[in-house]
């Protein structure tokens, strides 16, 4: 249940960010991050609908790779 998934921030409205990954879009709360620490185009690590950390695009890609491997059961 501690699994967190990287998503790309598309737009921000107050404490809510529209985030996407692989064509899926979700509203994500930014309430757990310092105000102003995220901009559109950044990547965030999302857990149960809340961004828990800002991360780099490279780390986002590496994390997706492991999720893909785990899901395909290799």
């Amino acid at each position, binding site marked *: 249940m*501690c699994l*967190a998934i990287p998503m790309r921030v598309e737009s921000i409205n107050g404490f809510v960010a529209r985030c996407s990954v692989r064509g899926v879009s979700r509203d994500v709360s930014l*309430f757990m991050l310092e105000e102003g620490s995220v901009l559109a185009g950044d990547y965030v690590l999302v*857990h149960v609908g809340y961004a*828990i950390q800002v991360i780099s695009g490279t780390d986002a890609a590496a994390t997706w790779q492991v999720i893909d*491997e785990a899901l395909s059961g290799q």
Partner: protein
Amino acid sequence: MSATAKVWLDRLRDLPLDHPVSILNVCGGHERTLSHTGLRAALPETIRIIPGPGCPVCVCPEEDICDAMRLARECDVVVVAFGDMLRVPINAARSDPRCLSDARGAGADIRPIASPREAVAIARALPDKRVVFFAAGFETTMAPVAAMLCQGVPDNLFLLVSGRLTWPAVDMLLASEKPGFDALIAPGHVATVMGPEEWSFVAERYGLPIAVAGFTAESLLAATYYVLTQLLATTAHLKNCYPAIVRPGGNRVAQQQLSHSMRIVDANWRGIGTIARSGFALSETFASRDARSLLASPQDAARRHAGEMPPGCDCARVVLGKVVPTNCKLYGKACTPRRPIGPCMVSDEGACHIWWTSGLHNRTHAPHRRTGVAA
């Protein structure tokens, strides 16, 4: 497996290990990477990584699930909970529902949610109803629950908090006579929120190597390598193998929200017992939101202690890393994800569920059979 992971694996194979070592992981996510990507099977025989207390659903006490059920069935409230919680079985009379899902089938209004934000949305949509959020989880999950509270929630939303802290369980294991492991891999997302520093006690107080790992094969292998090199050099310190995400001090905003909305209490772990200062409860500020206040009477003491684990289920010892799932007599026989007997077979984070879904269907073909963990 990536090229970097292969390099780490080669480095691990080159280590001059002349006796078997056990490394405990404390995270269902780590366990999943190890099992589902074939990483565990690729490790040298002498290195065994065993699943430990990494599943909050598995340790959620029966009495809390029972309270959630009583609220939904007797108090005319809507209960919302993370999906995993709905199928966790409890000991119940044949005529009574065995899990929240059964109770839902029998007419109670119980709804699965994926985010605390959904709990707020449901409460807003039903202003004439009382809504109870049954919140179980480790620090990573309780922090968003805290954020939800601090941001402000409607008056008709109450909480049944069953959150747990991971490090006190490890501390309890280490303080016991036979911890059963030589080193530890700490959970990356717990450390993201709480800061890696809270794990340094493992090295400082108990002299065991410890590394924080992320969820890629590379990060887990690096963590394994660093704890083993410490073991070989007979030193112990905390190594952060997930530095891009786990930063010194952790997420301070989240920590402030947690300390504003929650207090730390002694808490019962299913089948294990009370672990000092290992649970979250609502702080004074949010005390009026306690869903237990909606219950007409407290659960009677006899029901509370009716039996923590189903008969024959070894889940508590699996959670403590004392046995591996395949050591349980019911594994894959009476107990499968389709018909789970114990909580470890229900949750995506449960070791039994992870081992079974990774294809380990034959109890005699457990990884590390030859060096298997002592029962």
